[in-house]
């Protein structure tokens, strides 16, 4: 299947972005340190209130809290998506080099990042859209460090592009964030694990078959022995 080819989309409506975030929140283990990227990943924070999960914001904060609004806004306290946030009992602040010592040093149990493309081998492309025409320049942010440093990398994204083309491909065609770094892909249709044998389709949303998912996925999928409906 060519990447230029539009895919056949099932009749079932896909998950809302918040529900992709919920599926990911349900995968996180208590006692873990987690970094959430910009976009759908940020929404994961809405589903972990009260859980024993500590969020790291790469700007230099551990135990970052919920979004702050109105009178509760503290201009000197933002997360890595430039949103005002609360602190929590036990929050800490530190400088950027300490923040990335945590990230590259393997202290982050999980990173959740958005993606433009993921390859069959788990390569991630997420920082540079060639259509924007900026060549080798782009907003790298913390993505390259997180991709190599996090112990587990979960990608949260729409399954296909807004113009109906697959984002899970045999090879990424956009500039890479890192090679072979993705462990799990959660989309608005499916949950796919990256394994040494290839991409394994573990779950699909209700009313959507494994065949439907394959039609929207340019890379070959292995159907898991325990393939089942996604539960939320």
């Amino acid at each position, binding site marked *: 299947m060519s990447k230029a080819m539009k895919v056949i989309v099932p009749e079932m409506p896909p998950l809302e972005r918040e529900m992709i975030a919920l599926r990911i929140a349900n995968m996180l283990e208590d006692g873990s340190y987690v970094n959430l990227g*910009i976009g759908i990943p940020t929404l994961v924070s809405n589903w972990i209130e009260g859980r024993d999960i500590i969020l790291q*914001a*790469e*700007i*230099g*904060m551990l135990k970052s809290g919920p979004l702050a609004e109105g009178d509760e*806004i*503290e*201009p*000197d*306290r*933002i*997360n*890595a998506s*430039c*949103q*005002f946030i609360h*602190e929590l009992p036990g929050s800490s*602040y*530190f*400088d*950027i*080099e300490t*923040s*990335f010592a945590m*990230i*590259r040093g393997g202290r982050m149990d999980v990173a959740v990042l958005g993606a433009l493309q993921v390859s069959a081998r788990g390569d991630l492309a997420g920082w*540079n*859209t060639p*259509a*924007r*025409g*900026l060549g*080798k*320049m*782009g*907003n*790298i*942010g*913390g*993505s*390259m*460090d997180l*991709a*190599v*440093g996090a112990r587990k990398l979960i990608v949260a994204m729409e399954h296909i592009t807004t113009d109906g083309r697959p984002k899970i491909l045999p090879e990424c065609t956009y*500039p*890479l*964030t*890192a*090679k072979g770094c993705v462990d799990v892909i959660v989309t608005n249709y499916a949950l796919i694990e990256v394994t040494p044998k290839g991409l394994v389709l573990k779950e699909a949303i209700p009313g959507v078959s494994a065949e439907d998912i394959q039609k929207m996925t340019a890379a070959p999928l292995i159907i898991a022995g325990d393939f089942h409906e996604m539960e939320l």
Partner: protein
Amino acid sequence: MDKTYTSVELAIEDIPDGAVIAFGSFFTAGKPTALTRALAKKGVKNLTIVVMQVGVGNEEILELVENGQVKKAICNYPFPRSATRGADHSFEQAMRQSAIEAEVYPMGTFAEKLRCAGAGIPAFYTPAGVGTVVAEGKEVRVFDGVETLMETALPVDFAFVHAWKGDREGNLVYRYTARNYNNVMAMAGKVTIAEVETLVEPGELDSNFIHTPGIFVKRVVETGRPDYSQSPV
């Protein structure tokens, strides 16, 4: 040892054309706004700016760009997030037209380049960026089976930092996430200039909780609390 200056204009008076200047901040937090505005007013040109980002709520850096003062930008997150916003953004347009040279680094690499400059380490190896365009032209070495890139230190002539409190000897304390790049840039600067919201006498800051020790800071100027009436983008 009194490092205070009475105004931001005096604190930056000797900055020449062609200087390499680092600016603390991460998005809207911890920006050295008063010093940066004074630099725009001073009008020095051919500057190399070292700053995490320009595209999101960094009007002060944008002013330097729009004044034509910037020759080169070394950064991490240069553009507005959305392509639509980028189409109207003077920095993105200057980059498109190659009016400004640019280098973009992964965030941890950017931070470590500055740290190394401040710590007397000329180069380091990092796994971030291996197999990407960031690796082009760089030495790759394998340590314990992991591919890494050689990156070099990034010394800067002047560093502008914003602190919550500082004393006359240059000891600095930052507030919440406004610390971000300020400490590492203070370390990297040959001449580090700190704007502080509140200036205090030596001994008034709790000596157990100094974030940047005064040895890294050459000049201190009290600028008050910035106007935060504008929301982040």
